[in-house]
């Protein structure tokens, strides 16, 4: 009985269990069906807005990639950011308008916003500090550092009431991040260079699909000759992917003369310029260094006038070439070691800073600088002289000014290139105005006026007018022969002709001409077969000097009927200055350096035509590197280089050198003249002279304004300074007017040129 009851209970339990399982199954099945139905409803609902939005979002990201690719490609060629930025904005607008046009019918409201975000926090890498890098204004390019980034960012928002999407928003950032691993640069087993680079994109994803065709490597070729660009694209033989976006690049440098390339392996191999273009077309450019530091020592003044308060105009204008050589006044600064080459970013990226108080000064301040474009051999300014929309390529010069105040003999200069592609070029500080045939250049200290389109007038005697420090002086650049006329003579009979081209950059103006025109103002004739001449005038910003470079060749044996030639001189005064009040402005005294290092001082005449120093009367052949005309508050000086001194001594007649420094007051008493003559005008029995074809006239000189001084204590010595018919036009024993020319003339001599004391990079 009990057993039967137990079995009946067992059967019931089985049925209950079975029913329970069946119920669970039914419930589970129903739940699964409901879930599947819901999923299907969501996935395949009638309104396809979800797919449309995903499609738009996907193409928005793609459009940003395309825009960044186009912008970086454009920037790579234009070297200025405005054009690529405009292009990027145009493409962005075009995309938005296109999307709105395409999806307007679908009831979509598409909007975009430019985002602002932090791309990379401030950091230190390979010893160089990076500022925080922000992404804004659609695209940002941070190039030319070991770690460089190209980025674009914007967000898209879509509202579709019909599709049930309101407030849908998606921010997008597209970027390419390249890190040139500077410590990894090393020589390979053969004549190859190895280095590593890490390439990543947005969300720190490694870029894994680069091949040799995606990279370009530029290396310095120390063996190139003059006129050939020193950065050469290396032959990338291998690009090995190590994982994590890390590549090893194996590159074979290209040399003009491989047998002389040892300095590359010992020094120049450290300088690597790497450009990567990923398979989306986005470009980024990295350099293995970010700046070059120079310690430049002046040798002209501080040693001779230590901590002298007059030394406020010792400002040099240095020219730095891509191969790292530096020049002052067309002379290379000596340096015993290697100097880094200058890389090739757009020239607007450069910044030049310098210390003010010497190399111990921890503060660097920006100094006036500009980039210039010259011919490839650097002999002649290019018509695109001040073009900043270009890279620092062959023919480029980086020009900057460094001042040495009293007590400072060395200054540190840092040439750096900024990473931000939005960096602007330097502002112009020199103004040029052109009126009629004149070009007037204001450098902030003086106003230099050129007779830019010479004709036949009384103006042509004086090629340059320099107005500054409250007065004016004209500097004549070259003239020869004398024209006899009605009892008098026209000096000089012939002058180099041809129009001047005046080009200016932010801080230096260059006026130049290259011509075979020789003008004869007294007759109005032109000659084309006598001399080929090239002249360059340098007018830097905020200095008291201009530099004059002459390079001429006699084309024939040109006959001077009355032998006379002056390469450089200066004339102060004009008709209006003869009477009061102009008379008080005229220069009163003249001083000059003579060959033994002494100075000669004298007074110009106010009433007579006097040859104060003239070989027809006295020892005018005794001269040296400077001469100055002045009064209190104003001085005009001319500084001769060693080249000019040699040039002056290179003309002989009958075996006698014909040079002198001619000092005189003109026949109308209105003007005072000091000029270097290579052939002085011999008053009695004036000889003729036939020039030597192919003889070159090559020299440099400088004109210089300063604050002058006064001369004291007259005496009489006609051999030193003739009085002529004016007893007041006497030589003077002492003068405060010699202080400035005595101090500054060495700046313009090769033997006292600045030198590089140290060069480093980082």
């Amino acid at each position, binding site marked *: 009985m009990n057993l039967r009851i137990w079995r009946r209970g067992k*059967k019931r339990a*089985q049925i209950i269990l*079975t029913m329970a*399982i*069946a119920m669970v*199954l039914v419930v*589970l*099945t129903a739940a*699964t069906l409901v879930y*599947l139905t819901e999923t299907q409803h969501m*996935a*395949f*609902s*009638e309104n*396809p807005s979800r*797919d*449309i939005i*995903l*499609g*738009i979002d*996907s*193409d928005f990201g*793609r*459009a940003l990639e*395309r*825009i960044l*690719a*186009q912008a970086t490609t454009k920037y790579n060629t234009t070297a200025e950011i405005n054009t690529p930025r405009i292009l990027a904005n145009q*493409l962005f607008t*075009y*995309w938005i*308008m*296109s*999307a*709105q*046009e*395409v*999806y307007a019918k*679908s009831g979509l409201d598409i909007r975009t916003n430019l985002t602002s975000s932090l791309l990379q926090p401030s950091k230190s890498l390979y010893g160089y500090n990076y500022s925080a890098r922000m992404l804004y204004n659609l695209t940002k390019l941070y190039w030319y550092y070991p770690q460089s980034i190209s980025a674009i960012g914007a967000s898209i928002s879509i509202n579709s009431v019909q599709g049930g999407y309101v407030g849908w928003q998606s921010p997008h950032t597209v970027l390419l991040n390249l890190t040139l691993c500077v410590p990894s640069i090393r020589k390979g087993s053969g004549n190859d260079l190895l280095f590593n680079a890490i390439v990543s994109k947005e969300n720190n994803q490694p870029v894994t699909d680069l091949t040799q065709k995606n990279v370009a490597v530029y290396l310095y070729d120390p063996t190139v000759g003059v006129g050939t660009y020193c950065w050469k694209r290396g032959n990338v033989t291998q690009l090995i992917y190590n994982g994590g976006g890390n590549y090893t690049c194996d590159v074979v440098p290209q040399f003009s003369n491989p047998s002389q390339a040892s300095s590359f392996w010992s020094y120049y191999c450290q300088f690597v310029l790497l450009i990567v273009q990923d398979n989306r*077309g986005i470009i980024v450019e990295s350099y293995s260094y970010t700046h070059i530091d120079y310690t430049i020592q002046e040798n002209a003044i501080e040693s001779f006038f230590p901590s002298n308060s007059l030394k406020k105009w010792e400002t040099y204008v240095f020219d730095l070439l891509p191969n790292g050589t530096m020049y002052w006044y067309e002379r290379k600064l000596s340096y015993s070691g290697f100097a880094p080459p200058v890389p090739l970013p757009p020239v607007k990226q450069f910044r030049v800073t310098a210390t003010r108080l010497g190399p111990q000064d921890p503060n660097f301040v920006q100094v006036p600088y500009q980039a210039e474009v010259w011919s490839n051999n650097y002999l002649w300014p290019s018509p695109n002289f001040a073009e900043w929309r270009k890279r620092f390529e062959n023919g480029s010069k980086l020009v900057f000014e460094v001042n040495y105040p009293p007590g400072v003999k060395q200054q540190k200069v840092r040439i750096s290139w900024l990473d931000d592609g939005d960096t602007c070029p330097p502002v112009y500080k020199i103004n040029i105005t052109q009126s009629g045939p004149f070009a007037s250049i204001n450098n902030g200290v003086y106003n230099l006026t050129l007779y830019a389109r010479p004709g036949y007038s009384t103006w042509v005697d004086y090629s340059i007018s320099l107005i500054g420090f409250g007065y004016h002086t004209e500097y004549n650049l070259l003239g020869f022969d004398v024209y006899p006329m009605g009892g008098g003579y026209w000096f000089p009979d012939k002058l180099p002709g041809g129009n001047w081209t005046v080009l200016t950059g932010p801080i230096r103006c260059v006026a130049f001409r290259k011509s075979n025109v020789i003008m004869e103002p007294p007759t109005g004739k032109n000659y084309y077969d006598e001399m080929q001449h090239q002249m360059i005038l340098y007018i830097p910003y905020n200095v008291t000097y201009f530099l004059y470079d002459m390079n001429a060749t006699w084309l024939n044996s040109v006959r001077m009927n009355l032998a006379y030639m002056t390469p450089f001189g200066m004339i102060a005064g004009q008709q209006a200055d003869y009477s009061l009040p102009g008379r008080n402005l005229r220069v009163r005294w003249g001083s000059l350096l003579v060959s033994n290092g002494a100075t000669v001082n004298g007074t110009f005449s106010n009433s007579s035509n006097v040859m104060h120093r003239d070989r027809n009367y006295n020892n005018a052949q005794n001269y040296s590197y400077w001469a100055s005309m002045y009064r209190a508050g104003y001085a005009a000086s001319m500084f001769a280089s060693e080249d000019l001194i040699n040039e002056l001594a290179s003309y002989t007649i009958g075996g006698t050198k014909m040079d002198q420094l001619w000092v005189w007051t003109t026949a109308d008493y209105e003007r005072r003249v000091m000029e270097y003559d290579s052939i002085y005008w011999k008053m009695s029995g004036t000889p003729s002279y036939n020039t030597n074809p192919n003889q070159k006239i090559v020299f440099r000189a400088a004109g210089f304004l300063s604050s002058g001084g006064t001369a004291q204590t007259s005496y009489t010595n006609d051999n030193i300074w003739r009085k002529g018919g004016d007893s007041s036009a006497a030589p003077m024993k002492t003068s405060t007017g010699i202080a400035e020319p005595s101090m500054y003339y060495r700046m313009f001599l090769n033997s006292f040129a600045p030198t590089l004391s140290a060069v480093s990079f980082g």
Partner: protein
Amino acid sequence: MRNKNRRKGQMRVIEAVLAATVLAVSMLAALKLTSSVNPYASETRDELTRYCYDFLLSLADKESFDKIIFYNSALKAHWEQTMTVTLTSLLPTDLFYNMTVFNMTSKNGIVSEVVLNNSTITDASPADFLAGSEVVAADIIYTSRNAWVLKIHLELARGG
């Protein structure tokens, strides 16, 4: 004894049926959850529309439009034929297609659609579309490498 065995047998049968049901439901659920949209098996117009978008977006993701339409940033000659061959090979044989590519052309600040293809990109006649049981269409926007913005319009019709 016979009744006892019969009852036992019935329970085994019920249990077997239940087990089979569990297995069948699990398999069906698994199949449903793991299967993608299959145009061959798609049964609704919505699924076909979805397929149409997916197809276009996958072509866009692979930059197929760039590869087919452009060469060195310029239009390829006879790219329409290449597109036709590509679509014919990728789309199921029981689907008719008709594609139109528009260049979004900006002129005087106004963007308008200009048909880019000079010849039709289709494997069907208009009659085929009329005869089709279902016709769907999808538009996507595509920005090419040379920064042209294209509107790609694709129509699909189920054959027969």
